[in-house]
């Protein structure tokens, strides 16, 4: 599956110490009542989503950089992208 996603300008990514937090700043843009904590892989995926890279490229980078099998990386990526899209934090471009 090759898709390209871009980030919503209404969600701010914060990296604090080794923690990753997504803060939606605008009502309606996402589920504003929430903030989200990301794990390390999630944080890296977020950094890699830039409106140009394809999910295939992102998958490759994740599988290279983290100690996961390609299948695990695929699953992490799918799930994460799905929840980001559901909250309106990213959209397909």
């Amino acid at each position, binding site marked *: 599956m090759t898709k390209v996603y871009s980030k919503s300008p209404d969600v*701010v*990514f*914060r990296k*604090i*110490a*080794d*923690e990753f*937090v*997504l*803060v939606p*700043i*605008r*009502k309606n843009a996402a*589920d*504003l*009542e*929430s*903030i*989200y*904590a*990301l*794990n390390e892989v*999630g944080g890296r995926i977020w950094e890699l989503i830039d409106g140009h890279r394809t999910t295939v490229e992102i998958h490759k980078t994740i599988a290279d950089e983290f100690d996961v099998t390609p299948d695990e990386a695929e699953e992490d990526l799918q799930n*994460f992208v799905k*929840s*980001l899209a559901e909250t309106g934090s990213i959209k397909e471009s």
Partner: protein
Amino acid sequence: MERVHSVPQETYTAFSNSIHSKVLEKNIPIDGTIELTQRCNLKCVQCYCCHDPSKRELSYDEICRILDEIAEAGCLWLLITGGEPLLRPDFLDIYMYAKKKGFLITLFTNATLVTPEILDHLSKYPPFSIEVSVYGATKEIYEKITGVTGSFESCMAGIKLILDRKLPLKLKTMAMALNHHEVSQMKEWSEGMGIEFRFDAMLHPKLTGLKDPWDVRLSPEDAVALDGSDQKKLDAWREVCKHPWEPSQNGRLFTCGAGKNSFHIDPYGYLRPCDMMRTFSYDLRKHSFREAWVEMCSAVSVEKAPGDYKCRGCKMTFICNQCPGWGFLENGDIYSISENMCDVAQLRARKFGAGSGNTKGGMSNEEEILSKAQR
């Protein structure tokens, strides 16, 4: 990806605790306060703010630079306060700038100056929380404290506007001699609308050290009795008393997050460990936040409780709010204690079941407090 705020609340609390514990030893300034002004449209009798017209408040550009720097340094929770922050004509610009940096913003306001225009923005870009101080349940008491005719109506109208927009509001009051008989009424009114309410009776001197607020301060007995008359506070204190923790043995004067994970910036650009500690101060017009923060952290961390520090080893530490900030504001000395705080702690211990107040740590004893009260 884990959703951590605000449903369910436990998830958020767990997130907050977890991130705080992770940054604790790293000196990351995760909790910040920025006071936009010390000016206010009200003139509350107990107010500790002291606007100094000879000093120049930070400009919008200066504030934006500081917000960039504190975000970079790891600040996540940001309190925007005053004085009355809405008095600044550029309040909305500052708020929006902070919002876009991804801070979780708490706004303290007296609500008298909120307008539909301000709330339009806040509805679109909501704060994490808005906290409004209410000084009385009736116009008479409220305005006796604020000193401004018509301020009660403005405050009520402001609260209504905030509620109409369904913004995350909390109400609170400073309990003092003028309004303590109305605290339960304020609480019922607030909780009746489904809004969290809290009160605090510990009034401290003005930031200049002037003791004027003490004219209306509750006696230790009345302050503790007020806590005891509130079921929620009573339960909370009893719970605290069931799990007393031992005083820390590390000898550090500061046992809180000030200058470790939290900081305060005043309207004139001075960085400090907290709003009460005016001794350590670093001019952010001359230094970057990072430089000033590093210097402040090391200055705070080397402060040791002196050998004759009264609280050293005191078993009541867990029920006492004494800290160097209070010592400083009350006596101009961070190594001194607030006698009033000490009396309150002793009475709390007695009333809420932490055993009899022992005199370890140099506390004044019960008889002394009671006899003082009778004088």
